[in-house]
């Protein structure tokens, strides 16, 4: 009996010791988290973040800022609302939702990322078609109520394509490339910058929406295109490092040569620099809420 008691006693002591170690480790981890004084910037990846990728190699960036990749722009929005991120990039569709929520008043718009090409239709490798031949083909879109699809639809109908005869498939973006590869879908409608990922795999861009500037700039052959807002940089209002230091640093990175910008994007995304060389570079600029709302209302028209 004495031996059994001793064993039980030893087990209890071991359990207590393990519990103590677990608690101490958790406490050390949590206290460590609280001590971080780096300004964390959330994003969901992609080739549009060129300025941020270049900034990462800036000596002023390291130690002050840190890029943190999250699953989707919505995840960045949640982390911003909860105060876990000092700044973050979200897309205009999520911006329009998040700005209506209580708690948005703690955030402010400090920048925008623009890109010349909007909605883009990519057809699968080996499919030799023109827009008029798309009837009956399966087209992948990422959301059922999708601005990109509406843009494509409007343009295609202007060119007498009956979009009602296209077979729409709602499919997550990261599943689009395998679906194109397997020939399960014939085409996808994606954002212009993301089309580079599909082009990298050998698929072809068949249509691309350009907003043409209605000015005298440019010429009859090559009218100037208007950049479209692709990402909006939000920052915590009470964090000067995020709301003014970060936009200044990103603006400086943006002024790097096109070669540097493309090389940073290629390194961060894995898209070969040769493919990016044929495409425009995304542009980061300082912005405020009024400007963003004006630009978005223009996009909705």
């Amino acid at each position: 009996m004495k031996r059994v008691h001793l064993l039980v006693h030893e087990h209890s002591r071991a359990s207590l010791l393990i519990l103590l170690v677990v608690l101490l480790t958790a406490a050390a981890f949590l206290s460590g988290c609280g001590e971080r004084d780096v300004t964390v910037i959330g994003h969901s990846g992609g080739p549009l973040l060129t300025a941020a990728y270049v900034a990462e190699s800036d000596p002023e960036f390291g130690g002050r800022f840190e890029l943190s990749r999250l699953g989707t722009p919505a995840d960045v929005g949640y982390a911003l609302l909860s105060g876990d991120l000092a700044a973050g990039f979200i897309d205009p569709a999520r911006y329009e939702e998040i700005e209506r929520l209580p708690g948005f008043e703690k955030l402010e718009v400090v920048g925008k990322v623009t890109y010349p090409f909007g909605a883009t239709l990519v057809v699968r490798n080996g499919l030799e078609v023109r827009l008029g031949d798309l009837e009956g083909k399966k087209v992948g879109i990422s959301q059922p109520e999708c601005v990109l699809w509406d843009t494509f639809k409007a343009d295609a109908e202007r060119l007498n394509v009956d979009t009602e005869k296209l077979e729409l498939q709602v499919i997550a973006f990261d599943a689009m490339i395998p679906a194109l590869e397997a020939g399960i879908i014939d085409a996808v409608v994606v954002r212009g910058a993301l089309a580079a990922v599909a082009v990298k795999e050998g698929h072809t861009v068949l249509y691309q929406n350009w907003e043409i500037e209605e000015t005298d700039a440019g010429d009859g052959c090559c009218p100037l295109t208007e950049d479209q807002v692709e990402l909006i940089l939000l920052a915590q209002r009470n964090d000067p490092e995020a709301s003014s230091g970060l936009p200044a640093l990103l603006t400086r990175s943006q002024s790097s040569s096109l070669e540097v910008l493309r090389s940073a994007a290629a390194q961060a995304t894995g898209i070969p620099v040769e493919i990016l060389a044929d495409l425009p570079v995304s542009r980061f600029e300082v912005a405020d809420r009024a400007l963003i709302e004006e630009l978005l209302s223009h996009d909705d028209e």
Partner: protein
Amino acid sequence: MTEYRVKGPRLVLRETGFFMRNAFGSIFSPEFIVVFVPALALWEILPRVGVVPSTLVPPLSTVTVTAWEMFVSDEYLVHIAHSMGKFFLALAIAIATAIPLGVLMGWNIAVRKRVLPFFQLLAPVPPPAWVPITIIIFGIGLPMQTFLIFLGAFYPILFNTYQAVKDTDPRFLASARIFGASEFTLITRVYIWDALGAIIMSVKTGIAVGLVMLVIAEMYGGRSGIGYVLMEAKEFFQIPVMVVCMVTLGIIGWFLIEVLKFAELKLAVWKVGR
């Protein structure tokens, strides 16, 4: 004694009553109520007083109103029906394949040595990593979603069944062999019955993992199901809708586990009360 001679609708009625008493008994037990009611009260109060942001954690009353609106519109019920169709199909396939395979692996060392390492290599692969391959093989839609849910439920059922059959009490086997039982009889009368409690437990785990996979599967392709509604709500900051979907999945999981507990009560009487 007459109690056990009840047949037909009366038997169904009696068993349903028994099931309801057992299932809801755990919810309405004093032990659970003292935990559950304060938790619900905290859910209402904490966002209201600003301890947690109400934008991210909507109060219970807001979620209740949203739930009412969603259930009143038939659309959400159609989504639930779609999800359940996929889920039961996948679970049935998982049970029909994993249990026989697990029994074979537990019973026969030669089968185990040939098959087990294969599953041990594949099981740790996170199910979302299978998505591109499943799209290529099954396309977008029901077959792909069913396969992903199947994958979630299959491994817990397989490994627990195998382990339970392997751990069958050798005394039971020796006794059966003394009476001249064949290997087939041993499997059908000893191994499976001794492992039944663990097998039912493994199906419970399979249900939980399968529900997780249901949400992941409905993220990719298709425009129906609770997972689809949940992900859409998450992406567009409709947090009360998201919470209703989460609660719905929780209730479905709880109900299915209660059904299995009832099955265990009826089939593995000797395990009850342990």
